[in-house]
């Protein structure tokens, strides 16, 4: 059962990055589109992600619940040592979710719209950034349960170049996912022409910021680069991901929406898979070397059994209806 739970945890994280990521990215894309067509972009965003918006965010909750039921030491270690970035991320989540719905359901469209838009776009940026920072901090080896002072216990644990580079990388990934996703929805050729170069810039940024992660790891003295290049499986994932990027670039022009989306999704899966494989089963790399792994921190016995069954039964109910939801609104986006 432990393996079932681990698979669900990985799935939840991946789905959150893909679906939630595309969702955050929509705000980022909005930020970089010219003012004149922003309204158009908003409409498209709303009609495509509106119906599945709420469900996208459930993946995060599933991941958190799996962590605190199945792997409580990991959950508590994160909550204590990454308290500050977690709070910042939460603020982003609140701002974004509420602004997104409020701006749509406000019965009067006036200056308040500007406020909602501002909150929406900036928190679309903040949330994935801190999500990335948290992910980076987890594997950076800077978390120190025996830290002597406030700074090293609660700030040094996440405030360093490597985590920040992962944060930037995550933002880029989200923007990239959303751009690819939204292009498929644009019907107006003029807007499409505006979108494609932006999608390319974001793809390029993803590539660069990905490289920057390795650079930052070197500067921070993590052995990531060296280990990566000797670990063939995870390296080949990364290489495949990079190849995908170039293929995608080609396809963006012809704009075949399903292929582009699949490629983008596949590419992100590969990147996550590469890092996941690299660190597995470790989840948090601790300074003292007593790393928290999925095998040494799992609750044992009945809790894990019941959690596994709950997840299996839940997914029997959830997955078909989720696919039907996505399918229905893919075929015919919501009308406004």
């Amino acid at each position: 059962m432990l393996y079932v739970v681990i698979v669900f945890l990985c799935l939840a994280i991946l789905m959150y990055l893909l679906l939630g990521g595309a969702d955050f990215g929509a705000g980022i894309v909005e930020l970089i589109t010219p003012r004149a067509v922003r309204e158009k972009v908003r409409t498209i965003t709303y009609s495509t992600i509106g119906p599945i918006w709420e469900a996208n965010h459930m993946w995060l909750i599933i991941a958190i619940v799996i962590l605190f039921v199945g792997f409580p030491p990991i959950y508590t270690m994160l909550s204590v040592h990454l308290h500050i970035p977690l709070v910042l991320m939460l603020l982003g989540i609140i701002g974004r979710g509420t602004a997104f719905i409020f701006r749509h359901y406000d019965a009067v469209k006036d200056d308040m719209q500007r406020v909602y838009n501002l909150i929406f776009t900036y928190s679309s940026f903040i949330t994935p950034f801190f999500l990335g920072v948290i992910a980076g901090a987890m594997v950076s080896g800077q978390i120190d349960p025996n830290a002597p002072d406030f700074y090293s216990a609660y700030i040094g644990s996440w405030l360093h170049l490597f985590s920040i580079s992962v944060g930037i990388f995550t933002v880029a990934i989200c923007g990239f996912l959303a751009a690819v996703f939204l292009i498929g929805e644009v019907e107006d050729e003029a807007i499409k022409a505006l979108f494609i170069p932006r999608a390319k810039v974001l793809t390029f940024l993803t590539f660069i910021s990905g490289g920057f992660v390795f650079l930052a790891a070197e500067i921070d003295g993590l052995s990531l680069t060296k280990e990566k290049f000797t670990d063939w499986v995870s390296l080949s994932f990364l290489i495949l991901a990079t190849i995908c990027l170039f293929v995608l670039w080609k396809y963006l022009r012809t704009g075949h929406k399903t292929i582009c989306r699949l490629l983008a999704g596949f590419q992100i899966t590969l990147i996550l898979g590469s890092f996941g494989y690299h660190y597995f089963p470790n989840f948090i790399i601790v300074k003292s070397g007593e790393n928290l792994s999925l095998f040494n921190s799992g609750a044992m016995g009945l809790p894990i059994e019941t959690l596994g069954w709950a997840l299996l039964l839940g997914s029997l109910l959830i997955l078909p209806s989720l696919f039907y939801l996505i399918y229905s609104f893919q075929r015919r986006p919501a009308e406004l």
Partner: protein
Amino acid sequence: MDDLIAARSQMALSMAFHIIFACIGMVMPFFMATSHYKYLKTNDYHQKALTKAWSRGVAIFFVTGAVSGTMLSFELGLLWPEFMLHAGPIFGMPFSLEGTAFFIEAIALGFYLYGWDRFNKWFHWFTGVVVGLSGLASGILVVSANGWMNSPTGFDYVDGKYINIDPIAALFNDAWFTQALHMSLAAFAATGFAVAGIHALMLINGKNKVFHWKAFRIAIVYGGIAALLQPISGDISAKDIAVRQPAKLAAMEAHFETSKSAPLLIGGIPDVEKKEVNYGIKIPGALSFLAHGDFEKEVIGLDQFPEDEQPPVMITHFAFQIMVGLGMIMMVLSILYFFSTWKKKYWQEKRWFLWLFVLATPIGFMAVEAGWTVTELGRQPWIIYGFMKTKDALTPIPGIQISFMIFTAVYVSLSVIVSFLLYRQIKSLPNMEGEQPAENQSSTQH
């Protein structure tokens, strides 16, 4: 304010905020489904407009409920890591099932809100019912988690370790049923009265009378029935507590000394120093009767517990009085409504009648907040009753005051914006007097 107080206040604030949206998320879908059903059966365009108006409200509340709930699942760890470290695997069962319930709720809501004129109309209606059912299920499940904190079961506590964990036994702890029943009724009563009150106000204003009457009826029937059942369920809860958490009962009643044929206290200001109560009305033997169904029986007082294991008396007592008092008012109002429909139809045209319900708009939610204050404060100083103290669960990170201030600011602004949006939604209802317009005209801006 020290870190412990700050953390407790932050938890309380977040919960108090979330519960409002949770109640509405559990109950409004049923109102919606009812008016929707009437629309499908009678093709009455008011009912359709009502369904749509309510569903816009639900969308606003739902997202606020969802983000505040997401915060809570992090806050449990951010504030009480030591608690979660041990409790997570034990009381996790309801949370993992709740995940499924939320997911289904979110999916069904996607279908419902965006599915008008797109699916088979009964399928569409059914997704609305699913939103309500899964919301109710998730409410019941979290309350069961809270019930576990009140009456922990499903593990053995040996040398500071929690072993032989049985999450299913923990899910069906002694408190879950009484609490879940009382909470579900409370959600219906509070939301029903709040919605009815708003529509009563609109009736007084005089625009769209037919529309608002239909809305008022649906809301008050749900709310009224729940309010009538509430005291019965409250009595079951009280009997339950007398056995499972006598310290809580003693604090609720400011019952300082153990005694036979204990009196029931109504009102009164407890003097914690002198261990007595001033100005209250005492009904002899009634507390014994309430707690144990026998006017003679002994009721355990606070004197049976060491100083550092007594819950705060003052607030718990006041909160309990407020809950029961408001519950009584709601019960009387419900009787008034049902009686008037039965015998005195013309009362309903009167302004005083409507004003009564307008004034009652917030009291259901006030009772909910008061009730939770009783439950949570009455459990103090324990976070896991009898096993772990709240102060031992606190996070080691200092400066929780700052986080408390940030969260307060966020919740206050969210409340302001949500009220503002609701006000605008209500104000922008089109005039629907007179003839039934052609199909589709009924949908207001979307």
